[in-house]
C-alpha cells in the first residue's frame, strides 16, 4: 500500500465482522498530516471499531490499515506510542486523583521525568483542573471527567489524536473549550480524527469529512464536495421591506438566471418589518447580479445570503441513499 510522505492514515478495504454483524465494511480512506478529519455516523455506524483497528487494539477481519506507515495489527505498540485516544466514555479510575491519573499515564507513555510535572501542570491548567488536581476523580462532574480524559489523551503530545464523541454530554461552555482545544491542536499541526454525530461540530471544525452508515463509507471529502452529492440547486435568500414584496417578487422573477422567486416565512425578518424571498436556480456567483438588479430598480435590500447545502442536508441526504 503506497503512501505519500504526509499521509498518516491509510485504510484499504478495512473490514471487521463481529459474529454475523459487519461493523466496518470495506472502508478505504487516507488522512493527511495536520488534517482535522471528521468521522460522521449514527451510534453503531462503525466509528469506534475503526478507531480500535487503527490503534491495533482489535484486529481487522479483512483489509489493511497503515498508520505512520506501520501496520497497527502487528506494530500496535509503536502506533499507539504516537497516538492519543479519547474513548467514548472517559474510562478513568475514580480512586485516583487528577494529578495521579496524569502521572500514571505519563509514566506509561515514558514522558521524560524532567518534563513530566511541568506537562501535567500545563494540562491541568489548560483544562481548568488545577484547583482539583489532588481531588479523587470519583467526585468529578461529567464535564470534569471529560476534560481530564482529554488531558490524559494529550499527556504524551501525540501526533494523531482520536477523539470519540469528545463533546458528548458536555455543557455549552465545556463544548466551546473542547472546540478551542481541537483548533489549538490543528494550529500546532496535529492530526485530529474526530468521531462525532454532532453535525454542527463537524462542519465547524473539520477539513474533510467521511460519512459512515452501517459500517459502510457513504461519502468522503470537504463539505462543498459532499454538497455536490445533493441533487439540489442552490438558492439565495433576500430580505426586502414588506411593502416592496410584490414589486420585488416580480423584479427577481425577471432577473436571469433566477428560475423562480417566492416569499418565505421568517419570523426574524417579520419582526423588523421585512420579508424573506427565496430565489431558486442561483448561487453565490449570482449575488452581484441580484444586487445590481435591486439597486437599479431602487429596491432596498436588508439582507442577501447565498444558501448552500449544510452538512446536515448532506448527511441526511446520504443516509437516505
Amino acid at each position, binding site marked *: 500500500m503506497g503512501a505519500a510522505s504526509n499521509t498518516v492514515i491509510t485504510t484499504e478495504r478495512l473490514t471487521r465482522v463481529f459474529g454475523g454483524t459487519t461493523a466496518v465494511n470495506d472502508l478505504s480512506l487516507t488522512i493527511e498530516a495536520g488534517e482535522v478529519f471528521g468521522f460522521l455516523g449514527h451510534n453503531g455506524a462503525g466509528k469506534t471499531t475503526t478507531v480500535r483497528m487503527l490503534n491495533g487494539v482489535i484486529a481487522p477481519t479483512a483489509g489493511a490499515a497503515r498508520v505512520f506507515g506501520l501496520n497497527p495489527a502487528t506494530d500496535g*505498540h509503536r502506533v*499507539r*506510542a504516537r497516538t492519543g485516544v479519547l474513548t467514548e466514555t472517559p474510562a478513568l*479510575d475514580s*480512586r485516583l486523583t487528577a494529578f495521579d491519573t496524569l502521572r500514571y499515564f505519563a*509514566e506509561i507513555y*515514558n514522558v521524560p521525568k524532567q518534563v513530566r510535572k511541568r506537562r501535567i501542570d500545563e494540562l491541568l491548567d489548560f483544562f481548568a483542573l488545577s484547583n482539583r488536581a489532588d481531588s479523587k476523580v470519583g467526585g468529578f462532574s461529567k464535564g470534569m471527567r471529560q476534560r481530564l480524559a482529554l488531558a490524559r489523551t494529550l499527556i504524551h503530545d501525540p501526533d494523531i489524536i482520536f477523539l470519540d464523541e469528545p463533546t458528548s454530554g458536555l455543557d455549552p461552555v465545556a463544548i466551546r473549550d473542547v472546540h478551542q482545544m481541537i483548533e489549538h491542536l490543528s494550529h500546532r499541526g496535529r492530526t485530529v480524527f474526530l468521531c462525532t454525530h454532532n453535525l454542527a461540530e463537524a462542519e465547524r471544525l473539520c477539513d474533510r469529512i467521511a460519512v459512515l452508515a452501517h459500517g459502510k463509507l457513504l461519502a468522503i471529502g470537504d463539505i462543498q464536495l459532499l454538497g455536490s452529492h445533493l441533487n439540489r440547486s442552490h438558492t439565495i435568500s433576500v430580505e426586502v421591506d414588506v411593502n416592496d414584496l410584490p414589486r420585488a417578487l416580480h423584479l427577481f422573477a425577471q432577473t436571469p438566471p433566477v428560475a423562480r422567486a417566492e416569499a418565505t416565512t421568517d419570523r426574524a425578518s417579520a419582526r423588523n418589518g421585512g420579508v424573506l424571498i427565496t430565489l431558486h436556480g442561483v448561487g453565490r456567483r449570482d449575488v452581484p447580479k441580484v444586487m445590481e438588479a435591486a439597486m437599479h430598480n431602487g429596491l432596498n435590500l436588508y439582507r442577501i445570503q447565498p444558501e448552500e447545502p449544510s452538512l446536515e442536508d448532506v448527511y441526511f441526504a446520504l443516509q437516505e441513499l
Partner: protein
Amino acid sequence: MNWESVWAIARKDVSVALRTRAVVLPLVIVPLILMVGIPVLVGLISGMAARMDVASVNLDELTRPLPSGFGAEYAGLSDPQVGYIYFVVYLFAPMYLILPLMASAVVAADSFAGEKERKTLESLAYTPTTDRELLFAKILGAWIPGAMVGFGGFIVYSIVANVMTYYVAERIVLPNALWLLLAFWVGPAAAAFGLGVTVIASSRVNTFQEAYQIGSLVVLPLVLLVIGQAAGAFILSIWLVVLLGLALWVLDVVVFVLAAASFRRTTLMARL
C-alpha cells in the same frame, strides 16, 4: 520490556487495590482469623487443658505418624502441650498458604476483572504497552501484595505461635526450617498460582466478584492438605514442602502460559 511502564501499572494496581474496601477487607480479616484468632483460641484451650491436667488422650492415635524426632524433642511435655505444638507447626502449615494465595487472587481480580468492570481497561489498551508487558505488569501488581501478605502473615504467625506455645508449653518453636521454606519457597509460588488462575478467570467474566469467587476455588486443595494431615495420611516434612513448592512453581508456569494465551488485548477489546 518497557520497565517504566510495567512498574507504573504494577504500582498503580497495588496502590488503588489497597484503597478499595472490597480488596482490603479480606486482606485484613482472613490473616487475622487464620494467623492470630485460631492459634490463640486453640492455644488458650490447650493451655487450660495442660494446667487443669485434663485426662490425656492417646496422641499417637490422633496425630500418627509424628515427624521423626518430634517425640524426643518434646519429651516430658503433657499431651495437650505436645498436641498444641504439633498443631502450630504441622497441622496449621497448609492453612498458612491460604494467605498468599487468597491475597494475590483478590488483588488480581481487582486488577483484571475490576478494570473491565470499571471500564478503565480501554484506556489502558490504547497505551503503547505490548500484551506481554501489560500482562507482566498486572501479574507483578498482584503477586507483590500476595507475597507480602504471605511474608507478613509468617512474621505475625511466628510471634503469635511463639507467645502461645510459650504460654502452653514454655517453648519457642518458630521459625523452623519447615516454616521458612513455606514462607519463602511455597508461599510465593502459591501467590503466583492464585493470581494465575484469577487471570484466566478474569478473561471470561466481567466483574471483580465473579473473578474473585472463581479464583478463590484454588484454596480447596489446601483444605485437602489440612484434612489429609489431620487424618494421618501424611505429614509435612521438609522434603515434602520442597516438593510441594516445586510442583506449585511448575504449575505456575503452566497457568501463566494459559493466562498469556487468554490475555490478548484484541480479544479482550472485541468483547467490550
